[in-house]
């Protein structure tokens, strides 16, 4: 079985490399086609002569052709260099490191919350033991998923400040007496809002109901065995691993908005800023990292599924 897992991993690795090339190339082309220019980060273009602006572009290497710039970028990447942020002048790798772990904390906790909420709701609904609780939870899930995440963010800030007298913003090192609210509220907003929770619940519930109808479950029930032991692999591990992998892009996207609203100094804010600045080295770095996360999650999902069901490796 290990051999199969290894083979699957190798295959995915190849696909990942191709994907990286395509994603970064697409990003490069898109950015060069987009209106706007990182030059205005450095100077007020209106107050300079065209020659002076051209000199700035030359200094930044923006006057070279697109293939050349992409080639240079790839060459540096091959040496492990992600380039330098046009905005801050710091290496992109440092910027990603400084903000990435905060986003990981936010998105990881949010996804854990999504899964917790969805699993409980789906389980209760599928087992049909507590129909009222299940319906209420499902309704809450749908309602929260239906709200735009930025609006939910403002709403959460409003409720937290007026009802509980706490401000759910990321506090700096300089703030005293910060509360847990600054961490919990954005996690709740991203975990239960952002449109994912209802989808995960529904998917999981459908899957669970399907599994519950299987013959081996009926047999297990008949012989009085623990239902959970027979259920968790097909009922939870399989759908959850694929759901998790599929939802990562959405959660990362939601994090951009949530980080803005809650002043969370993570990668989402970095991305937002870099996009407004046309800071293409930073944007490419973020793209690459996001693609990497999505792929790693996908590969892990494949690995988990192959481990659970070796037939899938064929």
């Amino acid at each position, binding site marked *: 079985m290990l051999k199969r897992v290894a083979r699957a991993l190798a295959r995915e690795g190849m696909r990942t490399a191709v994907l990286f090339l395509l994603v970064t190339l697409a990003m490069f082309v898109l950015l060069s086609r987009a*209106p706007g220019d990182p030059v*205005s*980060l450095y100077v*007020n273009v209106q*107050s300079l002569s065209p020659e*002076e602006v051209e000199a700035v572009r030359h*200094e930044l290497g923006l006057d070279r052709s697109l293939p050349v710039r992409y080639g240079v970028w790839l060459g540096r990447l091959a040496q492990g260099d992600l380039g330098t942020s046009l905005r801050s*002048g710091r290496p992109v790798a440092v910027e990603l490191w400084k903000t990435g772990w905060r986003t990981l904390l936010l998105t990881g906790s949010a996804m854990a919350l999504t899964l917790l909420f969805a699993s409980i709701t789906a389980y209760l609904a599928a087992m049909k033991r507590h129909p009222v609780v299940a319906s209420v939870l499902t309704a809450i899930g749908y309602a929260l998923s239906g709200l735009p995440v930025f609006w939910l963010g403002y709403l959460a800030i409003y409720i937290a400040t007026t009802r509980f007298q706490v401000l759910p*913003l990321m506090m700096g090192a300089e703030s005293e007496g910060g509360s847990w609210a600054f961490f919990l509220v954005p996690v709740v907003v991203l975990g239960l809002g952002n449109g994912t929770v209802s989808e995960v619940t529904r998917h999981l519930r459908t899957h669970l109901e399907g599994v519950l109808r299987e013959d081996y479950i009926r047999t297990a029930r008949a012989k009085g065995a623990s239902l959970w032991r027979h259920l968790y692999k097909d009922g939870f591990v399989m759908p959850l691993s694929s759901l998790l992998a599929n939802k990562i892009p959405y959660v990362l996207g939601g994090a951009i908005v949530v980080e803005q609203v809650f002043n969370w100094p993570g990668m989402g804010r970095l991305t937002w800023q870099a996009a407004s600045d046309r800071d293409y080295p930073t944007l490419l770095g973020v793209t690459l990292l996001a693609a990497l996360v999505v792929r790693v999650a996908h590969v892990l999902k494949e690995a988990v599924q192959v481990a659970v069901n070796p037939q899938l490796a064929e």
Partner: protein
Amino acid sequence: MKSAMVAGVVFGVLALSTSGSAQGRTDGFPDGGKLVYGEYGRPATLDPITSNDMVGLRLTELLFNGLVSFSPKNEVVSDIAESWTVSPDNRVYTFKLRSDVKWHLKANAGDRTVGADDAVATLDVIRHARTLTSLKAPYELVADARKVDAQTLEITLKRPIVNALGRLSFKLIPTFALKNPEFLSRDDPFAQSPSGTGPFQLAQVTDEGDVVMEANTLYFKGRPHLDKLVLKPFADKNVLTQALLFNSADMVVEVNPRDIAQIQGDKRFNLYPYNALSYTFFGHNFKNPHLAKKEVRQAIAYATNRQEMLDSFYASRGTLISGPFAPGSWAYNLDVKPLPFNIARAKELLAQAGYNKTGADGYLAAEEGKPLQFTLKIPIEKENETIKRVALAFQNYMKAAGIKINLEFREWQAWKQDVFVDHDFDIVIANWAFDDSADISTLFHSGETAAWRNNFVGYSNPDVDGLIVEAKTTLDREKQRTINQRLHQTLAEEQPYTFLWTLTNYAAVHRKVRHVELHPFKLFTFADTWYIPKKEQ
């Protein structure tokens, strides 16, 4: 709207009376306490040369000094230079520098004081090809800068200009602390961790982006009263007020107009108004054959109820304007009154211009079955949601006059591309911010219509061109004023822009902070005199 749209370049420096010793202040107010101020957005760099945004401009007021600075009335006052003389031909400026100005400790300057060679070196860095800075253009006027002796500096200009002294207010940096003392690029650690001479010195930039500053005990005008000053960046303007109300910040530099009433009602805070030299306008593209007609532009002005918009969207916190200068400027012609709201007059003018048939859709007919219609391009800016309301109101006002307005919202950089490069718009809503020179030459001169030039509306009038050149070449301020007032009158009549208003900004500061005085756009020029009473620290 956006600070990036700056007509004329904004200069400035730290000001204040030159009294006080390097040890402490003699005003008797207590030292100590901390002030956290909230800004919208974090500065890209923290030095005064590569920094190119308002957040950075305000921050560098705290960390650096120039040769000269400005008083609260915007007069040039001494700063690092204690005195100066000007040659009879107005080209050579000789500055005598104070001998007690020390660099911040982190510059590792040892016993070294700031001298003429530092000023020369700073100018050299600004003008170096590898330094990317907006300051380069204004300092092109400097032909030569040389050290006469340790504390004497001589700057020679290429030609005499008005208010040259005010333009020589660049901030001095310790060039020996740069990675390469000849130029400054953004990847130089100095750009993120600079040292200067100002009342506060940089202590730390946290991972969250907070810029922590502490009192410079060696400050030549005396130690500032506050122990600590922290810039806290926020990514969303809507939560800045919440941060203030929940003690996450003691000060917000620009309060969201919507939140002013709420802060006003809170006894913990004081609101400080300040008038930036800026105004908002609708700009009309002269390439559009309909907008090229003066009557149409005048009709648009008459049909726009500007007072109503100012009252309802900005709670009347501003002033209507009639021409191309900010009302706070010396160049503004108070005799020219803003056009009144008069829909009948608007219709009359449109009829005069040949638009007298109304189509089935209720709009005036322009040509074969097409209504008289224009596209209004609006930059999407998160920090300014009110602009959407203005656009919608404008659409309604124009509908009443029989003009159809199509709204098109564009992302900021895309908007700039459309407006400044492609000139692809009929009407834009925008904002100009000025320095004190009140120089509108690039806005309305017919030679300034190329890509990225400021006359993006394509306005061309030989009389105006003539007046602009005359205003630029004269050194006599009174004569300049007369010319500018004539320009004002002509442009008010011609309406290349529908001139809207200038807004009053408000900073909110916690009551515990006393003696708060603000510079109109640099804000923190006088922050070394702010203090917090012992009991409230």
